[in-house]
């Protein structure tokens, strides 16, 4: 087998393709990179750790703990975020990274610390007790003032489940008064660390309420915790499974994430599809090139065969070698519909350009490849555009055997289709080329009229006899066509027939007849027109006035002058135009008449019927 595209070849082509499309691939990769970046930003673990980062500059007298309560994070989280340990020095002016924000404390299973207000308790007292500030409590509880009611439960802070902060212990780190700039907390920090380690067990149990007795009196604080097994996330803040993720994740974020995933998927699919298509295209192109080469050489060999005996040129047989090539070509390419169509198109193009023996041989090939059946099948196709294609091929290859089929389509409801069929029938006919129009009962546009005339003029020895039959057609558009043909082909002999058409009931036919009569001037026409004028419609009357303008002599000038004053503006305009068209009529006289018309507008004017 010739020109086999092997798998190896395909891979080579793919490689070549990729090499050629570096720019395109670069674009795809950049897009994929940006999208994955976007996606990773939306990933929960990053949201947890990265989005809510804050910075804090350590002020004078500030301790690690006061900072931690200010931002509602644990001391250990601050230490972790800043790569510090409890023995590190926290100096004034040091810039600390505060890892997380308030809502995430609750989200991640942290405990809300509640305090029920006892008698004589003030905001300040409670704040001091929990190592926080009055303002903080106001903010957390959205309080409007400093007054507290006894028995009201307030949120005073958060407790981390992993590393539990002491509640009743001295939560305020001892501050070392120092006149210098640095507030050293190193010693106390170590102490706290010990305490933290001691109390480091996270709370266990479900929605436990802890009642703790305060040594100072009847004040209680409630601690509501969410048990670790209720939290859908692990210690790292990641969801245990996809189900939990979709269940607990917030809706807008969820939509965004799903959108991002779908978007990336779509991009990947599109990239794959485009690449595949392009690869296929390259393979196709390759095959097309093989087709072109084979086809061109084959056609050339057949067209340029020198035959010793030229007399039998129309029944010539292919040589043994040619027959073999044809067979191979058919086997290799003509089993594929695409190549059959390309072969048809190419042969038609050459058939149109060549004449004599060469054209005949092209035609022979068209039959030899059995392409004629492809064309005939198209005409039978249910799809109108396929039919149109078939009709064009029939016309271009002059397939007279398809004449009847094409003829059957000249009145098809589809305008494009029937126009194409009419043109094909016109060029397939040997004589009386236009007689098919006698059978036409669909309207014929001015555009199609032009096409038909152009096509007709290309036919050598075209025959336009018997136009009179078309004038008698019950189809007014065919009558109009015939009248215009008489004008186009300057058939003076047919003028009486055109005059006869002035009695036609159809307005279009009358107007066409008047126009043609104005070109093919005849003395009898004007008399007929003038006698017909009174009973005609406004449009026909205007056309008659135009006729007078084009052909008329001075004797009708008076009539036109009278009509300029007509109460009917259309008739008045037509009369003005006609007067302007009359060569003898000087323009200033026309202007004079127009002036007099405007000044004597109330003057009674003859009605059209009185002329």
């Amino acid at each position, binding site marked *: 087998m010739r020109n086999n595209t092997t798998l190896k070849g395909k891979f080579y082509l793919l490689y070549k393709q990729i090499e050629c499309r570096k720019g395109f691939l670069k674009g795809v990769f950049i897009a994929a990179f940006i999208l994955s970046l976007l996606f990773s930003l939306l990933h929960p673990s990053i949201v947890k750790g990265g989005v809510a980062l804050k910075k804090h500059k350590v002020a004078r007298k500030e301790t690690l703990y006061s900072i931690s309560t200010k931002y509602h994070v644990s001391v250990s989280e601050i230490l972790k975020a800043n790569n510090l340990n409890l023995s590190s020095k926290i100096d004034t002016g040091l810039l600390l990274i505060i890892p997380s924000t308030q809502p995430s404390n609750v989200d991640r299973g942290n405990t809300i610390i509640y305090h029920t207000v006892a008698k004589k308790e003030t905001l300040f007292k409670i704040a001091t007790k929990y190592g926080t500030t009055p303002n903080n409590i106001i903010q957390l509880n959205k309080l409007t003032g400093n007054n507290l009611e006894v028995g009201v439960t307030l949120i005073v802070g958060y407790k981390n489940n992993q590393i539990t902060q002491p509640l009743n212990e001295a939560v305020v780190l001892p501050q070392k008064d120092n006149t210098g700039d640095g507030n050293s907390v190193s010693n106390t920090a170590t102490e706290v660390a010990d305490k933290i380690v001691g109390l480091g067990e996270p709370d266990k149990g479900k929605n436990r309420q802890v009642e703790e007795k305060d040594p100072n009196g009847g004040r209680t604080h409630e601690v509501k915790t969410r048990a670790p097994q209720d939290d859908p996330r692990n210690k790292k803040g990641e969801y245990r499974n996809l189900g939990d993720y979709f269940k607990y994740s917030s809706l807008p974020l969820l939509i965004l994430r799903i959108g991002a995933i779908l978007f990336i998927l779509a991009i990947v699919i599109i990239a794959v599809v485009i690449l595949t298509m392009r690869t296929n295209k390259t393979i196709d192109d390759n095959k097309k090139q093989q087709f072109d080469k084979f086809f*061109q*050489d084959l056609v050339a060999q057949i067209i*340029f065969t020198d035959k010793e005996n030229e007399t039998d040129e129309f029944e010539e047989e292919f040589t043994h070698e040619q027959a073999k090539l044809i067979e191979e070509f058919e086997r290799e390419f003509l089993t594929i519909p695409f190549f059959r169509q390309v072969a048809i198109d190419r042969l038609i193009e*050459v058939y149109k*350009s*060549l004449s004599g023996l*060469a054209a005949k041989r092209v035609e022979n090939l068209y039959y030899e490849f059995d392409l004629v059946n492809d064309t005939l099948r198209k005409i039978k196709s249910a799809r109108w555009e396929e039919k149109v294609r078939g009709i064009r091929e029939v016309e271009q290859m002059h397939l007279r055997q398809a004449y009847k089929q094409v003829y059957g389509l000249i009145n098809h409801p589809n305008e494009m289709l029937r126009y194409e069929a009419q043109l094909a029938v016109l060029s397939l006919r040997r004589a009386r080329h236009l007689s098919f129009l006698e059978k036409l009962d669909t309207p014929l546009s001015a555009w199609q009229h032009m096409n038909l005339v152009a096509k007709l003029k290309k036919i050598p020895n075209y025959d336009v006899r018997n136009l009179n039959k078309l004038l008698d057609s019950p189809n007014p558009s065919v009558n109009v066509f015939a009248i215009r043909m008489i004008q186009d082909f300057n058939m003076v002999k047919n003028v009486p027939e055109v005059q006869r058409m002035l009695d036609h009931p159809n307005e279009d036919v009358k107007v066409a007849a008047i126009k043609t009569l104005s070109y093919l001037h005849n003395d009898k026409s004007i008399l007929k027109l003038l006698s017909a004028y009174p009973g005609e419609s406004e449009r026909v009357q205007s056309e008659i006035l135009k006729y007078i303008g084009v052909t008329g002599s001075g004797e009708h000038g008076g009539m036109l002058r009278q009509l300029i004053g007509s109460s009917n503006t259309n008739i008045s305009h037509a009369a003005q135009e006609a007067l302007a068209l009359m060569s003898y009529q000087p323009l200033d006289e026309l202007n004079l008449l127009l002036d007099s018309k405007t000044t004597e507008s109330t003057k009674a004017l003859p009605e059209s019927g009185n002329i």
Partner: protein
Amino acid sequence: MGMKILVAEDEPLLRRLIQIRLEKDGYEILTAKNGHEAIEVITKTDDIDLIVTDILMPFMTGLELVSILKSMNKTIPIIVLSSMSVEKTVLEAFRLGANDFITKPFSPNELAARVKRVLEEVGNTTK
């Protein structure tokens, strides 16, 4: 012989057929798909003896090609091929400097004969 002929024709099969037919007569054939390509070939190749060009081609028509060659002061003889046997087109082609005009459909043998004649005529005048 070995004379160089440039064939500018957009229809691939016809271009190839013209090429093969003229090669049979011993000419060396260069081809172009359109006027643009033809100009490129002409600027790259100095010793083109004749141009056979179609009129209706994409990007640049045969007539445009003829007028551009004229403006480039190239005195290469040109045979124009056209399916438009309109008098105006034929006259325009000759006015622009075409040496011959062939109307489609044409016989390849006729084209070969005209090519031969034009080359002989040009050969005689330059001698």
